[in-house]
């Protein structure tokens, strides 16, 4: 696909996402505040009732735990985006895939451009909420330029991995009558095993070792810890290698499903 076309699809998706402005900002602000408030109260209770100063391995204080969650929530907006309405499964169910098959551009890069466009509002929220939360909460954060650059590369790869995992799940729609539940189930697993619901540092050591090699930590734990300077260049490189490896696995699986699925696609829709 030509870069110009890719960019046009992306920018069109950004404009579409911003069209319901009141809705968008109300949901975004309420979602962010509630999410932060719940983890604030939860961890305040944990630290107070346990009587501990630090928790987990590596150890975190209450304040650094809140900083971790703040980063997870914000980076999550870049990795995960919002609901992806241009979902591949919908194209398959409705027969809408037909028109893409006639377009002079490949379907999957087209969808990836839409996916990147759908992240547009997340980028805006990341910058605004991040700045407001940082100034308002007065949090102690030491972020270096190198750390931010390494974290950015992690976010780009994590976002692509999220896309290819989504792709595999949505392409199952060629055979299954509804993949919504699979999609939601995927998010549940990523949220607990990727460091969104709980920092992976609070899991038992054995579980942490297993999670080191699974793809889940790539989405949140890896970019956030790199951003906060908890992981050095060597660990960053190892994490990126793991992330790229999983990207290759899911991309190959996606291509296989796409090839097989198209052979039996009728284009009638349900």
């Amino acid at each position, binding site marked *: 696909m030509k870069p110009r076309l890719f960019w046009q699809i992306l920018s069109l998706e950004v404009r579409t996402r911003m069209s*319901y402005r*009141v*809705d968008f900002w*109300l*949901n975004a602000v*309420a*979602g962010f505040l*509630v*999410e932060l*408030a*719940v983890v604030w*109260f*939860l961890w*305040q*209770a*944990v630290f107070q*009732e*346990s009587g*501990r100063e630090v*928790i*987990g391995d590596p150890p975190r204080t209450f304040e650094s735990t809140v900083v971790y969650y703040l980063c997870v929530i914000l980076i999550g907006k870049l990795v995960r985006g919002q609901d992806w309405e241009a979902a591949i499964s919908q194209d398959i169910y409705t027969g809408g895939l037909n028109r893409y098959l006639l377009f002079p551009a490949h379907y999957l890069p087209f969808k990836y451009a839409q996916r990147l466009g759908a992240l547009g509002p997340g980028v805006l929220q990341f910058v605004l909420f991040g700045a407001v939360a940082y100034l308002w909460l007065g949090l102690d954060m030491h972020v270096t330029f190198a750390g931010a650059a390494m974290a950015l590369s992690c976010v780009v790869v994590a976002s692509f991995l999220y896309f290819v995992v989504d792709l595999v799940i949505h392409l199952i729609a060629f*055979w*299954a*009558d*509804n*993949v*919504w*539940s*699979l999609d*939601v*189930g995927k998010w*549940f*697993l990523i*949220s*607990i095993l990727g460091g969104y*619901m*709980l920092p992976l540092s*609070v*899991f*038992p050591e054995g579980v942490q070792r297993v999670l080191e090699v699974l793809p889940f930590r790539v989405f949140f734990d890896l970019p956030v810890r790199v951003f906060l300077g908890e992981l050095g260049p060597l660990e960053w490189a190892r994490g990126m290698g793991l992330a790229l490896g999983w990207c290759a696995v899911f991309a190959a699986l996606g291509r296989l499903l796409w090839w097989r699925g198209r052979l039996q696609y009728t284009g009638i829709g349900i």
Partner: protein
Amino acid sequence: MWRYLRLYLAFLRFSFSRAMEFRVDFFFRIGMDTVWYAIHLTFFTVLFLHTGFLGGWDFDQCLIFAASLFVADALQMTVFSNNMWWLPIYVNKGDLDYYLVRPVSSLFFLSVRDFAANSFLNLLMAIGILVWALVRYPEPFAAGTIVVFVLLLLAGALLSYAVQMIFIIPVFWLQSRAGLREISWSFSRFGSRPHGIYTGWVRRVLLSILPYAFVASYPVHMLLDGVTGTRLLHTFAIVSGAMTFMIWFWGRAVRSYASASS
């Protein structure tokens, strides 16, 4: 009353036969909720590796809370959730007319028409987890307390439906995608943790105007700390208040419905 009961039985028949047509989705939905139960149990298990108490409750008590949350959620998913998903779509497309002209309460029809048969199996699973959590609790519960607790959980599911509807109904005026539904989903996160962890005005709000504490946490509080007249009255006032307001709000919304699609 009998007419509504007969109608509801017809809804159940249609919903089960429809669920059987989409068998893969049927099992995917069961799998999804099983994962949801597993991650919540994992969440509390991991948290209690680092603390003995959370919001004043120990691990066994939090297990009862988590299981109660599963039951209240499964009830809501089974009876109301699909219907609330479709409501804004009907309003925005101007399709509500077909429901308003029927000779039954439009609110009843639109709230319970689609019974989620696949979530019903999850409800049975959630009840199983709750029974397991109650049985493994070190102290026995009186039969009367259990009965009140079950009624409170039913009231919690009803309250959850009423509150979510209050956030969806503005779609009649806003012409947005789903009213303020996503905000209600955000607020409902408060209810997924024991209300004992919240302090100050946030706790007061969760026990009054945004009553998410009553969905699962407050019923468990009564089960563990005793059912008193004041607590029952408080619960009754909140649930009946929310239901009354929602029904009034619905009436206002339907009166202002212009039947024009957006």
